[in-house]
Structure formats: C-alpha cells, structure tokens
C-alpha cells in the first residue's frame, strides 16, 4: 500500500471514506445486538430486585457474593475438568480422522467424511435425547445387552460416570466439525512441499509429522479456542440429561445452567447477570491463556 503512486492519492481518500461505510452495517448490528445487551446486563448486575422491597442499587455486592458462591465455583470447576478431559480427546480424534482422509489411502473417503460430519448436523437437543435413551439404565440397549450376558448394567447416568457420558455426547457431536476445519487446512498445503519431501526420502509419517502438523497449527488453535468457549458454556446436554438423572445433575451443574436457573427459576435476574458476566470473564481468561501458550511456544 505504501508504494501507491501519488496520482492515485485522491482515490485513496475516497477509499478511506468507503471503509467505515462498509463496516457500518456490521458496527450498527454489533452495537445493537451485542454491546447494548452486554451493557444492559452489566447495568443489571449492579442491582438487586426483591419480591418484597423492590429494586435497590447494590454496587458490586452481587460480584462479591458470586465469587464466594460455592455453586458457581463448583460449576466452573466442573466445566474446567470437562474441558481438560474432553477437548484433547476430541481434537486428537479429529486430527487423526483429518490426516487419514487427507492421506488419500482410505477407500470411500467421501462417505467416511460425511459419516463423521453428520452428527454435527444433528441438533444437540436431538443428540442428547438419543444418547439419553442409549444410556438408559433399565431399557437402554447397552443395559439390555449386558443383562442378556448376565453382567451388571453400565451406570452411564450415575454420579461417577456422568461427566464422561456428557463428554462422549459432545465429542460425538463435534468431532466431525473440527475434523472438517483441520481437513480444509490440510488441503491448502501446497503440493510441492510433499513432492520436495518425497524427493528427500520422507515417508508418509514423516510428512505428516514435519509438514502437515506444523501447517495445521493455526487451524488447531482455532478449534481449541472454539472448544474453550463451547466447554465453558456447556448447557444443552446437562439441561436435558437432568430430566433423566435429576439426582446427579443439579440446577447448578454447569455455570451456564446455574445462570439460567437463577434467572428463570429463582427470578434473580440481577444475580444471573452477575454470574453470566463472571463466566464470560473466565472464558476470556481461558482463551487468552490458550493463545499466550501457543504463541510463546512459537517464538523460540
């Protein structure tokens, strides 16, 4: 851009005015639909509305309460644990599938690709209902099968297994999505690199390790960021499984579920806004942590 010749200077000015214009539709919607509600939620979180006594300004009291609220802390802790277990598993699977598809050695590659991706097209509500049926301790197919074999039925919905069962549902739903991102990134790698590597005597594994994986780093980072956000906002799956395992999944099982319960069961909109804000903060911090770690590893 800096090398543009002087006769074109006038055009550059016009271009400068066009920029904001092009951005305007986005900005207006962003302000109206994103920043305004965010600001309103921040405003709400500074008040407390009671059935008796009306609304009072309480400053940061709600935040002080929330930071000491064991239900919120447990909820955040639980999704953090979920993140640590589920996300690496899902991303490794997605990576393996993407590499296998990209290797060109698979038969029926398109069918397989579609097969892995299809669960993502299933709404998470439907997926959870389906898995909820499969997990059923009495009449679910796994329970029936083990009973036929005179084995104890697997307790997918028990306290100890629940997080794993949720992780399984989420993995099933999102492996295909992440695989597609990684696979698309793999397709952009120039073929001459492979040819050069092959000339130097590199095998398929060596190419995967030394060329494909480094080239995938930005895409992997992207999927990881999406997963941070997705994990910490875990809501649909526990909310639906709550109906079949009410004694395991409480209304504060995840932080997001807790905020929802506060708003729509307890009618504590102000406190719900506070909890949502803090959850947003946790996600921002976790995302930054991921970015910083990734960048630091790149510099040396």
């Amino acid at each position, binding site marked *: 851009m800096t090398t543009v010749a002087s006769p074109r200077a006038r055009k550059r000015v016009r271009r400068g005015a066009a920029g904001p214009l092009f951005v305007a539709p986005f900005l207006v919607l962003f302000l109206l639909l994103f920043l305004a509600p965010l600001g309103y939620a921040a405003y709400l979180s500074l008040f407390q509305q009671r059935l*008796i006594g009306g609304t009072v300004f309480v400053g940061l009291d709600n935040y002080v309460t929330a930071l000491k609220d064991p239900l919120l802390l447990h909820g955040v802790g639980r999704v953090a644990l979920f993140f640590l277990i589920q996300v690496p598993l899902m991303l490794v699977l997605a990576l393996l599938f993407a590499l296998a598809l990209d290797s060109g050695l698979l038969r029926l590659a398109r069918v397989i690709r579609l097969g892995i991706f299809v669960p993502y097209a299933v709404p998470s509500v439907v997926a959870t209902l389906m898995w909820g049926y499969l997990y059923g301790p*009495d009449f*679910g197919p796994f329970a029936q099968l083990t009973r036929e074999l005179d084995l104890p039925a697997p307790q997918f919905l028990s306290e100890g297994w629940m997080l794993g069962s949720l992780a399984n549902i989420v993995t099933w739903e999102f492996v295909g999505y992440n695989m597609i991102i990684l696979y698309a990134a793999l397709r952009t790698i120039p073929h001459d690199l492979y040819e050069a590597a092959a000339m130097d005597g590199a095998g398929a594994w060596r190419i995967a390790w030394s060329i494909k994986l480094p080239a995938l780093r930005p895409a992997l980072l992207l999927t990881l960021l999406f997963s941070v956000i997705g994990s910490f906002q875990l809501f649909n799956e526990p909310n639906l499984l709550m*109906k*079949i395992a009410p*004694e395991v999944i409480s209304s504060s099982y995840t932080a997001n579920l807790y905020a929802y319960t506060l708003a*729509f*069961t*307890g*009618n504590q909109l102000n406190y719900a806004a506070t909890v949502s804000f803090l959850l947003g903060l946790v996600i921002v911090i976790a995302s930054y942590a991921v970015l910083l770690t990734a960048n630091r590893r790149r510099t040396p």
Partner: protein
Amino acid sequence: MPSSSPSTSSMSRRRFLTATGAVSLGAALSACSDDSGSGGSSASAKPVGQADIDKAMKTPTELTFWTWVPDIAQEIALFEKKYPAIKVKVVNAGQGVQHYTKLRTALKAGTGAPDLAQIEYQAVPTYTITDSLLDLRPYGASALKDQFVDWTWAQVSGPDGQIWAIPQDTGPMGMLYRKDIFDEHGIQVPKTWHEFAAAARKLHKADPDVYLTNLAANEPAAWHGLLWQAGAKPYAASGESTLAISVDDAVSGKLAAYWGGLAKEGVISTDPDFTDGWYAGFNKGKYATWLTAAWGPAFLSGSAKATAGNWRAAPLPQWDAAKPVSGNWGGSTTAVIKSTKNPIAAAMFAQFLNSDPASAKMFATKQFFFPATKSLLADPSFTGDALDFYGGQKVNQVFADISDTVSTSFQWPPFLDQVATDWTETVGKSLADRADTVAALGTWQSRITTYAKNQGFTVKGA
C-alpha cells in the same frame, strides 16, 4: 369419555401435560396470599351493573387469551355463539414455566399482556402479590361459588374474599394399581400407608423386578400432593411480607421417614417420571401402582397400552383409615389480567368458559379434564363411564368421591419454582441416593428460608 378413540393417546398426553405444568410450576414471584393486591381490590369490589354488562357484551371486542389447553377453540365457539360481538383470540405461549416466564415479562414491560391467562392453582399467589389479577367479584363471580368444588374455590380465593380466578380442572390424588400383579402375589389393595409399606416389601421380595410404586425423585408436585393429604401446612403467609415455612415439621418428617425408609430398603423405585424409561416401566410391569391425580387414568391409558385391562383405581392409602383424605396434584384456572381494557367481557368469558354447563362438560369429554364443578362430578354420564383400560371400572366415580375428601386449607408458597427445584436437589436426591430423607428435609427448609430472606420476606418458624 370413550377412551378407545384413536385420538385418545395423544390427546391424553397433552391433557396430562396441561394438568401437570404443575410439576415444575411457573412462577417465582408473589407472597402467599394477602398482599398489595388486597388494598386496591376492596375498593373496586362494587358490583358492575347489569346494564353495563349488557352493553359491554354487545360491543365488538377482541379478547386475547393465553392458554396451552389443546383444541380450546371448541369451548370458545360456545361463548362466541352466545356473545357474537366478542371474539376470543387464543395464544399458546408455551406450557407451564415457559408460559409464566412470558407472562411475567409482559406484565413487567407493561405492554403485551393478554386479557386472560391460564394459571395453575399453585401459581395464583404469584400473580396476586404483584397485583396482576382482576378481582372477579364485581362481575358476579361470587354467585358461582356453590357450583365449584369447595377446595378449588378456596384455592382461587384471596384472604379478604377476593376471587382471583375461575377453576377449570383439577387433580385430586388416588392410586392406580395393577390388579393382575396384586392377584398374582396375593396382595390386597392397601387401605393404609402401613399396609402399603408391607405390600411393597412383600411384592419386591417375591419378584425383584417389580416395585409396588415409583416415587419419582424429580416430582415435587407429587410430594406436595402427599403433603396435602397428610394434612401438612408447609407454607402460610400473614400480612404483607411475613411467611411461615415449615417443610420439615412433624407431619413432613413423618412423610420423609416413611418414603425415605422404603427407598432405602429398595422396595420402591425412584425413577424420574415422564421419561422414556418411566413409560417403558409401566408397559413392562416394573411398577405395580401409580400414585397419581385424576388426570392420570386418561393419561395412562394412552401411555401404557400394553397393560390395558389390568389396571384399577382406588383412593390413596390413608394415615388414618377412619378419616379418608386426599391432596391435589395439577389443574388450572382462568384468570383475568388486571391491565385488561375489557374487564367486563374478560370476566364474563372466564366465568362462562368454566361454569357454562355445555362448556364445562366439553372440557371433561373432549380434553379429558377432571372437572372442577360439583354438577359434573355428580353427573352419571360422566361418573358412570366404564373404561375398558380399567376392566370396565367406573374410574371417574372413584376420583369424584376422592375429590370430596381434599382439604380446603392447603396454601402455596410465593416462589414455587424455587421451592420445587430445591426439593428435587435435596429431598428428591436423598430418595434417589437412598440417603437420609429426614435430614434432607432440613436442607430443603434452610434453602427455602435463605431464598425467602434474600427476597425480603420475614420468615417465621424456621
């Protein structure tokens, strides 16, 4: 009420849902009964003249009515035929919680609220504390008192005699049982809870795959019905903002020790209800009874077809066999929202819909609602219906008799949603985990108390 018609199944499931929005209960506002609403309403209790009513009913008007009752257009058609100037627009704003959340939002926003809304009995106080309902006395509602079952009228009445809504349907609780399973194991229909416990042990010992009953660990509405039967008074409001909460008193403790004990022994199941596993449980004979409400028979006949003909109905077992009593689970009312611009037409519609003989009967025969009017409960064409699913038993008669034994003094808390969620996470969880249910009552009590205090109530008896 020919339950053999093909539409029965889906119809009865929907109608059941109508009755049980009760389960998770809509609303979280409100103080128990007496409140800011009463001050204004006594002033407006002056009757509206007949001339004004006639004039209003001849003025072209459109009323908006939020309800989740399926196919309510047929009842509305009766009203519009009698009052051709009035048109009623039905809006289905969702069911139970969803409906209440939207209604609360509209009321708060001060715009978009309907003229009338379906409100379940337990949610009425929620809307009276915010002064959102119209007292129907000036519109002649007092004259209807004797037409409705006493306890339903008590549920819609305010402390100063206000009439906040008109009862639509009810759910007095009874027991549906598998006669074939009882016969097979030589079990008599239990008349008392003592006999019921003995039968539970005997049955489960004889066949470990079968439980005498399933007390769902996610069903606070059933627990409240059983509390109601046991004569508990868990919630009582006095004055503006004072609330007595005693969900862990002696009566509740007796109930908790009883059910917690049976669950701990493992002779009853505690599966969550209205889930796939629960439906399968009925069809495969896992549960030998269902302690349910009067809407239960129609619902079950649509949901457990594999067991048709094997079921019978009986009253709930009793704590004191000499004085049979029952509680209620579910049922709705029609209320007029105070902000309506057409109070006369709306009030007349609420009354017509539920008290006109043809309309009330239609609810019983088309939607399979269990009636709230005395005349229908005494009507042989309703009570005399012999149902094949129940081996030709006159099930409606059984529940009509039970309806007479429901106590009139049960009150609902002002934030039932919170109370219900807290129940599931304390008492319900203790049942499912086979832990100490009596101790869980204490946790429930303290959680509700904390919530109430945070909401600005003065809590007594905690």
